């Protein structure tokens, strides 16, 4: 049985429409038309223990709604959801003892308190046994390198430092599932890399299942064994990144550098995109010619110094998905 099992959950919100202008506002005081927005439409998926699942979708696709349902904040209109045998929204207090949640844009620490005091408070809130707490706190401090600012008030931390503390804070009570909602948002390049390594380590060393939403495709490529893409409340794709690449008829790119300066590079099954001195950028469709054949042909015709193969950026692939080009599983 999977650790998380989601069966056909649907959720709608109603927002009231208001007409423009003062007249509309006055009218709205007495009667309002409300509009139904389907945030989730019979969504089903499952997650196995120990996975790192990338959860993608454009803004407003229903990612946050899903996370809220999985973490017990929100109840769905219909459908079922079991997390380790619990129905999250029916058994909130018991459920949240076993999960950790980090919102990239909000904090769970106490703004005015030193980091360590926030941790101590969380020990009280989660009733973590003392020795277990100390052990976890020390090993997380070690792993996430928190020592230098453990006694600094949270408000004085940089965003990167704070995110590390947030993650530590969400792991103190030994959760078996970690929900990360845009954890790398706003971080600089170095902090992002650090954070990704941390997430990987946590997943490996604590066997914690990670569900990650992000708009940063590098996060996905670095971390996720599987991605789930949703749009308008329904699943667009569910599988590995490689599978996604294969299923989309995407062009690939090849960059070559020739020994001598030549006018042009030509191959009947490839298109020249750009040339700059002895460097040429070509694009081809793997369906028409395999990469190996193309490189072989080019090497026969020209003397090559360097070859670089490029996958289309994952960003482009996902953008295609968002645009409504459905992929068959």
């Amino acid at each position, binding site marked *: 049985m999977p650790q998380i099992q989601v069966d056909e959950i649907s959720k709608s919100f109603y927002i009231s429409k208001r007409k423009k202008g003062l007249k509309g506002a006055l009218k709205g005081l007495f009667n309002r038309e409300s509009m139904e927005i389907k945030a989730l439409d019979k969504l089903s998926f499952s997650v196995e223990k120990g996975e790192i699942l990338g959860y993608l979708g454009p803004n407003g696709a229903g990612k946050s709604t899903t996370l809220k349902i999985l973490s017990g904040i929100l109840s769905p209109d219909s459908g079922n959801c079991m997390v380790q045998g619990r129905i999250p929204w029916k058994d909130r207090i018991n459920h*949240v003892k076993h999960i950790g949640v980090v919102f990239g844009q909000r904090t769970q620490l106490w703004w005015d308190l030193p980091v360590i005091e926030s941790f101590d408070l969380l020990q009280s809130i*989660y009733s973590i046994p003392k020795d277990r707490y100390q052990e976890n706190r020390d090993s997380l401090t070690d792993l996430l390198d928190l020592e230098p600012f453990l006694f600094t008030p949270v408000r004085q931390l940089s965003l990167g430092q704070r995110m590390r503390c947030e993650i530590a804070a969400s792991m103190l009570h030994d959760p078996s599932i970690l929900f990360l909602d845009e954890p790398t948002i706003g971080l600089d390049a170095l902090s992002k890399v650090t954070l990704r390594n941390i997430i990987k380590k946590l997943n490996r060393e604590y066997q914690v299942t990670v569900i990650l939403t992000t708009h940063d495709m590098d996060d996905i490529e670095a971390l996720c064994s599987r991605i789930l893409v949703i749009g308008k409340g329904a699943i667009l794709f569910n599988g590995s990144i490689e599978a996604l690449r294969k299923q989309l008829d995407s062009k690939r790119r090849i960059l070559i550098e020739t020994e001598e300066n030549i006018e042009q590079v030509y191959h009947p099954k490839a298109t020249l995109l750009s040339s700059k001195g002895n460097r040429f950028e070509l694009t081809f469709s793997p369906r028409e010619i395999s990469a190996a054949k193309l490189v072989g042909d080019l090497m026969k015709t020209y003397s090559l110094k360097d070859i670089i193969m490029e996958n289309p950026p994952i960003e482009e692939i996902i953008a295609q998905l968002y645009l409504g080009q459905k992929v068959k599983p």
Partner: protein
Amino acid sequence: MQNLRLYFRLAGISMQRQLEYRFSFFMQILAQFIITISEFIGLAALFQGFGNIHGWTLWQVAFFYSMIALGFSISSLFTRGLDITPQLIKSGELDRYFLRPRPVLLQLLGFEFTLRRMGRLIQGIIVFILAVVNLQMHLDALKLLLILWSIMGSVFLFTGLMLGQATLSFWTIEGLEIMNSFTYGGLETGRYPLTVYKGWFRKFFTFVIPLGCVNYYSILHILEIEDPLGSSKLFQGLAPLGGVLFFFLGLFIWRMGLKHYKSTGS
């Protein structure tokens, strides 16, 4: 039990935070004290002109005034979290409280123990003492007990009102002024004995929002005054129970609010 211990920790931390800026802290208390005591001075000035209102003397009214001030200010010390619930909902912060394995209400109450609101409490105590001295009251054990019981009733009542206000914000963030008119309006209303008001108004503040129960009837018992409205001594003694019941009604509504929040998330 564990929850209670957690509450005291959270409250303790919030106090520590407020005491960090000591000067501004004392100034805030002083400011609130001056504002509230000037209200009372205004009341006293009124009596200078009229001598009495509906047969009530200044110090009798002062006693009513101080009793309701005590209940209101004690309740306001720990209900700041309910005050800011609308903001927490708007910003999404409230979700965090749902993600922790503790009752949401407990965490909200622990949000802050608002020390600066002691200004009103100090004012209440001073007016109370002035009234007791000027009325030459003999406070025996029964009276003291009744005083505590009345104050407790009004603490419960105002906390129930705050709960109602916070609950309403699960449905709408607009129109919370309506609730303000019950809390602050209740405070204003309770300053005078019920008899100065019209009949329907009296009934509203006895049976709907039982302000009269925690303030008027029990105080008559304490002041040993025959009720012009004709209530019995037994009823007067039991009346503050109305405040406690009102609180539990508030708690019930609060639970419904939480359920509603879970189904709408906003």
